[in-house]
């Protein structure tokens, strides 16, 4: 019996050896000119044995959103979300990624400059994932028209074509 288990474990290990490597996520960030984009490639782990394709895609998207909200390494000059902003959840609804951001996102310094750059980076990062073409933002679970005192419309999905 022990031998069988060892053999099975060996088979299991071997059969998963050839597993494909994960893809890369394109992390976009908006440069401090307010509109041009930088891009970094971040590789993503491959799909795990116990993860369905759709789960993997959702996990990939969530990882990408967390990356985009965190931004590139600190020594790279970029427009960044207000400190403390984080991704509360991400769900996929067809081609739209629903991203729920924490309320810290509302602590904008004012002006449309940063606001526009922040969401541009998030939208370009998520829509770089095949099958995602829109990003619906909510704040602390709520749909909002814009951020308080904001400019960018958030009550419908954002697309690359919006920039």
């Amino acid at each position, binding site marked *: 019996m022990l031998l*069988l288990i060892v*053999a*099975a474990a060996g088979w*299991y*290990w071997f*059969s*998963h*050896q050839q*597993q494909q*490597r994960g893809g*890369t996520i394109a*992390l*976009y960030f908006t440069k401090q*000119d*307010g509109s*041009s984009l*930088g*891009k*970094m*490639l*971040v*590789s*993503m*782990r491959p799909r*795990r*044995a116990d993860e369905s394709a759709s789960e993997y895609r959702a*996990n990939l998207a*969530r*990882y990408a959103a*967390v*990356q985009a*909200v*965190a931004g*590139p390494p*600190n020594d*790279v*000059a970029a*427009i960044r979300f207000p400190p*403390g902003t*984080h*991704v509360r*959840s991400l769900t996929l609804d067809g081609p739209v990624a629903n991203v729920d951001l924490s309320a810290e996102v509302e602590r904008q*310094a*004012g*002006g*449309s*400059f*940063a606001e*526009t750059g922040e969401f541009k980076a998030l939208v370009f990062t998520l829509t770089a994932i095949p099958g995602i073409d829109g990003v619906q933002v909510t704040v602390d679970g709520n749909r*909002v*028209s*814009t951020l*308080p*005192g904001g*400019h*960018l*419309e958030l*009550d419908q999905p954002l697309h690359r074509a*919006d*920039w």
Partner: protein
Amino acid sequence: MINHFIAQTGRYLAAASLLGAMLAPRPAVADSSLTISYGRQTLRLTHAVTYSGHSAVGIADPAFVALLRATGALLSWKTGQRYVLITTSTPTIVSFALGSPRYDLGPTTVQAQFAPFERGGEPYLPFDDVVRALGLAAHREGGTVVLAAGAPNAPEPAQASPTPEPLPPSPAPSGATMVTGVDVTSSDQGLTVAVAISGDATYEWHRLRDPDNRFWVDIKGATLQGPPIEQNEPAPLVSMRVRQDEPDVVRIALTLEGPKGIAVEPSTTGLGIVVSSQDVAEAPRAGNGSVGSVVSEGQIATAAVTPAPVEEPAQPGSGAEENGWKFGPRSGYVPTNPRLIVLDPGHGGSDRGTIHGGVAEAELTLDMAKRLRDILVAEGWQVKLTRSSDVDVYAPNDSAHDELQARVDVANRAGARCFVSIHANAFINAGPYGTTLYVSKPEDYALAHSIEGRLADDGTKDDGIIKAHYYVTFHTKMPAVLIETAFLSNPSDYALLTSPEWRQKVAQEIADGIERYARDNPVR
């Protein structure tokens, strides 16, 4: 068929053995208490347990949450999710998976003390691993774990860490690993250096800062098969050198033509180094990872590549010129009131807009809009302001939607010729300055261009016309533009914005631009 049968049987046996492993008695979870100190705070973890001799902490533990906040880290998890993501202050993403004994620390996969587990609906993480990932050094003083900033967040060898727990074995390469060949092939994007590696190895790469454009990657735990290589290479490379640098380290050194983008990625045959023909401005200077079964056994492989910036030819940052539909079909909008212009002083009432040095955007925008109104009226235009005093347009303390829709409604109901929203910009540092015009619809460009042509010499920089999905420009039916006149957060722009003469000059230039637009785009 027989093979299929064997495979199926294997699958069942594998499942059975996994089930067996899951049903096997797990190390006992025992409640414990853990007192930590960080900076001047002493915190008592109340969701702390001992698990197989290590400390585990629940992510909802108030003291743990306070520790994360104090270090500038953020945690993302919701019920039902398997992955607990922590963003450190650097920022590095740390990804723990429930049930998995390895976690991803940015680009590398690391062995955890134990697999995170769920207890009472709350994920419990290996405390020492979290502490290391946060870049904290830990030592025990009596019953307290003293945490201090400053440790590199890469897992350290045992002697560097005074924590009493033995460190987990790192995924050490096993067997004889060979670098069996290095191939350089060119593609549209540049060159790919394919390093063929048999067996398991870890690697670490570095690059120097422009103008010294050298890059090298050390394949650790590997032997070079065959003689060293030293040869010239086509652009974007200059040359390549491959040699046994130390008894168990093979070094591949590249000299680049310039600050080219580089991506290092494990492949099924070893390691791929993609050198872009494009220069990059901010390139990461080091990274590491592993190749072979260390990463491909599937259980928890990895985010094994350090971010490498690449050029983005497809998305040059928008702007009127690059945008395809600048010359697209014009809207069929016909103003019912072709002599009426609606001006929208941004913000107002409960919404002050951005505030710097005691100056609120809401006041400046109203002042500029009134000056602009007076000029336009003197020129024979009818002008409607969405607000003519410091109030909310829809209702006091209204929602953003009602407020902005009310402004849009003023223009749409009146059938105005065009809509001009006036704002002042801001950023978190004093760097950005200049005038930016934002548009949302194809028909907005002509108006924006006419105004930009006049504003270009307003005394600050012309930051151009940028497309964005702004509420007021998107929902107005007529040509519309949102003008960010200057940055309150920049000292020289601030001096302009707070000068009545400058605001008068800007108002005059916007009026000239509107005149110009109306002349060039007569109503049919």
